[in-house]
């Protein structure tokens, strides 16, 4: 047993921490997320330059030989600064599909672009009526000669406005919600027949509704075996959940620290409000929830390579526990900040909003509790 990080991982953390501190200060972030682009491509280029975008890929695939623990370290730092740039959709999700399901040609075509920062991906899986079930798909991919024709509507595709490529899930066979018949495709966003409606999300990121109307893709766009994509989707989304849990841990750590600091500074009744035992104990409960969330995030991350049942149980446990901690810490942080907590000006409200949306990404607490029960 060993909970130590490698020297390299410590270096990555320190480097990113410095980057976020020096180049991602609050005012800069505020300007960026309210600009028409909504992100900073120069930050993305910097991440490529630092090797962050190539970290979780093997050297054989053109990366730097890291894995899930490196992604965890990276995402935690992004969470601390509420970094909006799409590391999870691009590197964790698209990267995951390519690593686990891509052909040599697909890896060759796409991983280099991801590592260099020239390709940005979004993961188009959710649908208006599918809730959290990856197999509840109305989007279809019909065989057409050697290739496929895609039709459908993907909901709230995070990072799509910035993306050059999309990973799309679609039904190639079976009925809605069947486990078989689900396939995964990689598609350039500018392919004829793809339309997007871009918007801002409540947690300051960008997303889009993505519409596919008779979008013709070649056979080479299929990732993994036709109709057998669900297991691959579950593996990659489990990796994404572990990464998002790490991001949430970073955000919770900062939200908690800000709250403790505020309670030191803010005086009422002639004393710092942090001297009131009722607030002290609530901040202790927040801290405890945070530490438990970190533990569950480690557990999920370390079990990503385990057998399927063990992996899913650990990931669902993390999504439940970290989701509950995110709600507790977000709400209590706002409450203890008083009126200032509900303003746009104070950073705490933005941490609260990010943690709120995190709760429902890739399945909320109820959803993962059910999955955990089903595997117990």
């Amino acid at each position, binding site marked *: 047993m060993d909970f130590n990080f490698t020297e390299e991982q410590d270096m990555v953390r320190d480097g990113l921490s410095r980057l976020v501190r020096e180049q991602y200060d609050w005012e800069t972030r505020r300007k960026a997320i309210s600009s028409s682009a909504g992100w900073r491509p120069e930050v993305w280029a910097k991440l490529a330059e630092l090797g962050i975008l190539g970290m979780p890929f093997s050297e054989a695939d053109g990366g730097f030989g890291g894995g899930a623990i490196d992604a965890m370290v990276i995402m935690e730092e992004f969470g601390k600064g509420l970094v909006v740039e799409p590391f999870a959709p691009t590197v964790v999700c698209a990267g995951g599909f390519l690593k686990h399901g891509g052909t040599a040609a697909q890896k060759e075509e796409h991983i280099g672009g991801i590592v260099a920062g020239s390709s940005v991906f979004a993961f188009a899986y959710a649908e208006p009526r599918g*809730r959290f079930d990856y197999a509840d798909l109305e989007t279809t991919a019909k065989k057409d000669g050697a290739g496929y024709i895609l039709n459908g509507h993907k*909901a709230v595709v995070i990072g799509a406005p910035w993306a050059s490529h999309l990973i799309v899930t679609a039904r190639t066979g079976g009925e809605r919600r069947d486990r078989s018949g689900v396939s995964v495709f990689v598609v350039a966003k500018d392919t004829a027949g793809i339309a997007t409606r871009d918007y801002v999300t409540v947690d300051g990121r960008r997303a889009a509704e993505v519409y596919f109307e008779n979008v013709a893709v070649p056979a080479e766009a299929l990732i993994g075996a036709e109709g057998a994509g669900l297991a691959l989707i579950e593996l990659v989304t489990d990796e994404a959940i572990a990464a998002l849990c790490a991001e949430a841990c970073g955000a919770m750590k900062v939200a908690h620290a800000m709250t403790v600091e505020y309670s030191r500074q803010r005086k009422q009744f002639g004393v710092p409000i942090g001297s009131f035992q009722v607030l002290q104990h609530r901040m202790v409960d927040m801290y405890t929830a945070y530490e438990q969330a970190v533990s569950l995030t480690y557990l999920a991350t370390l079990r990503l390579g385990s057998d399927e049942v063990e992996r899913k149980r650990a990931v669902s446990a993390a999504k439940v526990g970290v989701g509950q901690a995110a709600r507790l810490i977000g709400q209590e942080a706002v409450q203890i900040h008083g009126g200032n907590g509900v303003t746009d000006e104070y950073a705490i409200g933005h941490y609260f909003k990010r943690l709120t949306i995190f709760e429902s990404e890739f399945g909320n607490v109820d959803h993962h509790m059910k999955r955990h029960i089903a595997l117990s």
Partner: protein
Amino acid sequence: MNLEFTAGEQAFRDEVRAFIAENHPKELGDFGMREDMTREEMVAWHKVLGAKGWSVPAWPVEYGGTGWTPTQRYIWSEENARANTFMPLPFGVSMVGPVIYTFGNEAQKAQHLPGIRSGEVWWCQGYSEPGAGSDLASLKTTAVRDGDHHVVNGQKTWTTLAQHADWGFFLCRTDPSAKAQEGISFILIDMKTPGVEVKPIKLLDGGYEVNETWLTDVRVPVENLVGVENKGWTYAKFLLAHERSGIAGVARSKRGVEKLREIAANETMDGAPLINDFDFAKKVSQLEIDLAALEITELRTLAGEQAGKGPGPESSILKIKGTEIQQRLTELTLEAVGTYGAPYYGSIANDTGSNEYAVGPAHAQHAASTYFNMRKTSIYGGSNEIQRNIITKMILGL
């Protein structure tokens, strides 16, 4: 003991229900509160009620009250919630009005009560300051006597909807040498007076409903001081007790639970309505149970009032539970809408020519922003921590 309405109360309910159906301005629809409402829209129903003589039901009859029993007032709130009307704002009707008719002089009553009743005059509340929130008595805004005027200087914050206000009621320190709670006066200020400046505060949901109000050498006629100089704290506490009793929002929350059930019936999970999911249904029922308890608790409080007891410290229970329930309702609504909780609808153009946005179902549109916005309820009106302190001191005697 029984919970049934009498025949007379049932007739009253039919009467007000018919009145609302006929007279609630059609252009307001049944939205209740919308973020982009104009001043005119927000006072439209108030003005109708003013003309009917129903805008201030709880006031004594001599000042324009309806003389309704607490049960009738309860029916009135229920029926308004049922129709999702936008009720008269509390600043005039429930806050400064009762202070003026209880502690004000005849001239103040004659000047201000008619405008509050009719909805012509918009009031705002100048209580909190950047350094005086939960510890309101530490407020620093000063009013210094200068001939026939008080000269007011200071900064107020969280002044709700002050951007529309004609008048404000302000707590100002008139005796800086006195102890914190003494030396405060309750002063009415015409918001058009030179030196009054209202600056919007953007909230985390993107809306602008509160403000900073800066007062710089504002000259206020001495006759605008209500009651006795330096006794303002007494009036402020009187007002807060009144504010709390209306803050439970039971009738609105009941409507909210119905709405939540509708949303959950329209959201699907695994091919079935979400409301059929045991986990979700359990949470909705728990909320309904808490709300049923609160409703009876509020009715017991109202009955106590009818027996001549003013709203006492037990109104803190109504504030705590009422706001917890309102917040829980928004939490569950956001959970219910799932993926479509994430879009920020403030950034999405409504280009469909109807109330439908092109992104997501209509019922998802305000789920996240309402959830964010309602975090304020456990902070405002005396935070829920302060309410617990009140119960600790006044009821438990600790």
